[in-house]
């Protein structure tokens, strides 16, 4: 809706610059920092008027960005790498999540304790490009993608609970909580973490970078205002995530108010877990760690799906990420905000049945 006529970047009082941010899913605490920045007026402080556009099953955020429908987009790095090789011209300007939040959960007695144990098992995945970490981790273990049976998971963990899947894909902040919110019919109590084996991809070679902020490469290069707006945008985002870190409960409430349909304790759990993926950020929030980036690229190069297709076949261009904007934002913020969260401590969230 905008972009072509961005007038003037950050700071200026006068007219606000209109900015559209494309999310990769419905409103939920996974995006708490952005909603907090809107709600707390951080964007306004930077001279921006930000519209957050949620996405459904078929809206691909990086494509909305490439098509000019949005100015920035939140997307997982491996998916965008695929898009870049397909011809999209995009740049990662801030790697908000420093760690992968993907788990592969199996029953405690299943004997699946590492990726190497996947062989011959029914492995759950959502598809939609969320499956590349699995294939990358398997490739690192020397496992062929055809050595497992990939089953598409839908919106809940029922397939796993019913025994249709041996190891289910789960985000720490969402599906894993869904398991812990479910009553174990054998005990009448909620399932406990001891009931499951949890493999975190963060601990494997397959780990890939997830939620990042993407911008249009060409506009960054040719449109100075857009470049300035990017820095202003990132400054507000940093403030937003810092707020979410320091006010977890409030942040969770903000996303509920913004339209999240999750029940309150689930939302709070999600806000808390997401914080763990961001903080502490040694180099400062959003700064892309070269090693982690390279691991993601290597994983993307090595991953082959069960159809024998590769995600990417060559190294991405240098423009695929650029730390200058986030670094400038951190610098401009100075001491105003704690951008590393060195002494971050997560809170304890007690899950309830159904998350209610």
């Amino acid at each position, binding site marked *: 809706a905008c972009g072509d006529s961005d007038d003037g970047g950050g700071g200026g009082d006068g007219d606000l610059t209109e900015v559209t941010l494309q999310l990769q899913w419905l409103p939920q605490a996974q995006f708490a920092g952005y909603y907090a920045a809107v709600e707390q007026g951080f964007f306004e402080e930077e001279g921006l008027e930000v519209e957050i556009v949620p996405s*459904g*099953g078929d809206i691909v955020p990086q494509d909305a960005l490439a098509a000019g*429908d949005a100015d920035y987009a939140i997307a997982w790095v491996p998916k965008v790498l695929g898009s870049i090789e397909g011809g999209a011209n995009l740049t990662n300007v801030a790697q908000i999540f420093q760690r992968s939040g993907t788990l592969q959960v199996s029953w405690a007695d299943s004997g699946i304790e590492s990726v190497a144990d996947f062989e011959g098992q029914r492995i759950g995945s959502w598809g939609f490009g969320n499956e590349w970490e699995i294939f990358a981790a398997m490739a690192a273990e020397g496992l062929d993608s055809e050595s497992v049976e990939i089953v598409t998971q*839908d919106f*809940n*963990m029922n397939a796993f609970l*019913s025994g249709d899947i041996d190891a289910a894909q789960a985000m720490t902040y969402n599906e894993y909580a869904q398991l812990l919110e479910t009553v174990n019919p054998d005990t009448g109590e909620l399932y406990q973490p001891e009931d499951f084996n949890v493999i975190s991809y963060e601990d494997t070679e397959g780990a890939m970078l997830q939620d990042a902020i993407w911008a249009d490469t060409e506009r960054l290069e040719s449109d100075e205002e857009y470049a300035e707006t990017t820095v202003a945008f990132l400054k507000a985002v940093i403030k937003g995530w810092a707020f979410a870190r320091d006010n977890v409960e409030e942040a969770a409430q903000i996303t509920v108010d913004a339209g999240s349909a999750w029940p309150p304790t689930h939302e709070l759990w999600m806000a808390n877990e997401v914080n763990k993926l961001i903080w502490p950020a040694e180099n400062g929030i959003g700064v892309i760690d070269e090693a982690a980036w390279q691991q993601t690229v290597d994983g993307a190069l090595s991953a082959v799906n069960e159809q024998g297709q590769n995600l990417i076949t060559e190294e991405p261009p240098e423009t695929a990420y650029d730390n200058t904007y986030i670094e400038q934002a951190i610098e401009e913020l100075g001491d105003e905000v704690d951008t590393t969260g060195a002494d971050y401590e997560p809170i304890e969230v007690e899950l309830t049945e159904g998350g209610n």
Partner: protein
Amino acid sequence: MVARIRPLLLGILGLLAVAALWEGYKALGPEDGLLVGDNRVLPRTTDLAMPHVWDIVQRILEPATSLDGAEPLWLLVAKAAGVSLGIAAVGWLAGTLVGLLLAVLMQGVRIAEWGLLPWIVLSQTVPLIAFAPVVRSWGSRVEIGGWEWPPWLSVAVIASYLAFFPVAVGALKGLQSPERTHTELMHTYAAGWWKTLLKVRFPAAVPYLLPALRLAAASAVVGGVVAEVSTGYLDGIGRLLVSFAGQASGDPAKAWAPILGAIGLGLVAAGFVALLGVLLRNYRRGEATA
């Protein structure tokens, strides 16, 4: 009197029978469903897969979440269904208009019928999801004066894509339905194509059009809901379907609320068209009553 409420009573009896079948199978059926070899021919009966009917009813009456001031689930669902109904209505209207225009074109020009009809049939085998992002993307670029393309309009456009099909086909059949005596009569009155269309073809098409419009209403609802899910529209019932399905592990009964809501929504939409049929009853005198 009895004759009037008989269909209603039978209908309720039918729904009760379905509920009884559900509970009966749940009580008697094997926990893991009926497996023939590796094929699960009959479903599982666990509470996760098949919640008790009364649990579903009870859950619908409870508040949606434990949050202070949370609405009862049924109200939340009803409100969302209302929004979806409005969007589907716009899609239905647009689809009806396009369908009618196509039908008139095809009726008037033989070659247009030959050239277009196969493609119209084929158009319905293209999965919605293939172009949902395109519609939203193009929509987001439309800006006329101060008016911006709202997200719900993308949903309506996709809904109309499903709705236009039965209208185009049904209206074409209807426009071609007048007996030769009627069209020839118009010829003897030296009435042209347009007058024949207005005075004979459209009225004669009504009995064909009404079932088509009813089908279109159902399609608009189904298409609209899918489009809501597909494009991430927040205020409709499609979103509740996805969100509550996501909570189905810990709260299995909750997921059924928007499903029942979607069915009710479709029935209301079809009911509106039935009302239209009552208004147009003079044009349906030829219809068989059986």
